[in-house]
């Protein structure tokens, strides 16, 4: 009997983490990424979460309420996130027999049988 194991990988605060790769001034600061034409919050650093900022909060309200706490608002930079996501998937891919990319920061590893050569699926 083949026993299957599935692992779900979800990168922490992915868009905020991406912004931080090249911007040390964002490290350890409350950071949110704004999407939809800077309309709403689509990612929050742990520091921003502890300020009580929620996903999809309107950016203008968040800015008004938290600018004194040094909140940094980044406009979404999807080419950057796509590049880093691709690097993450390519780092994981050789380690497992199969990998399903579920979204830009989530995937599922199939650790079933190291001999099987399953393809890598993405959408």
């Amino acid at each position: 009997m083949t026993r299957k194991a599935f692992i779900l990988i979800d990168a922490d605060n992915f868009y905020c983490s991406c912004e931080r790769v090249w911007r040390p001034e964002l490290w350890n600061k409350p950071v949110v990424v704004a999407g939809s034409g800077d309309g709403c919050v689509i990612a929050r650093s742990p520091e921003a979460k502890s300020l009580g900022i929620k996903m999809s909060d309107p950016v203008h309200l968040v800015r008004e309420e938290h600018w004194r706490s040094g909140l940094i608002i980044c406009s979404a930079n999807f080419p950057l996130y796509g590049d880093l996501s691709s690097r993450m998937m390519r780092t994981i891919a050789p380690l497992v027999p199969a990998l399903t990319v579920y979204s830009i920061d989530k995937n599922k590893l199939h650790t079933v049988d190291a001999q099987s050569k399953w393809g890598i699926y993405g959408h």
Partner: protein
Amino acid sequence: MNDIAILGRVRLELPAAALPFFTSTLSCGFPSPAEDLIEEMSSLDEIAISNPPATYLVRCAGDSMIDAGIYEGDVIVVDRSKKAVNRSIIVAVFEGEFICKRLIFSAGSVLLCPENNNYSPIVIKDIENLVVWGVCTFNLHKLSTI
């Protein structure tokens, strides 16, 4: 200070067109006659990049690393998956700035050393303040100014 600038993404796949790779060691005196020793097809990516998903190209500014052969405007290949060891040339984040320096462990202290006698080494007093961002593996230096 050697500041660095982001150049953009590294192509993750090897290009289709490859360059011939000669196995003869080039003597800088006169050309080797053994140019029929083409061993395999190679590419610049293959030579300079061992782990593409972890590799970034950055452009250097400043003159603090000239004795290591890194000049203003050179493009360095940075591998974030490599472990920095004593004497590695690294891209570090120190006091919120990206810098390129040689990492030296010496008598219990950690130094970020410039390769230019006009500059002094940075002594890292609190190792918590130092982040090794990546290890520099290659330098692309333009030889011709034309």
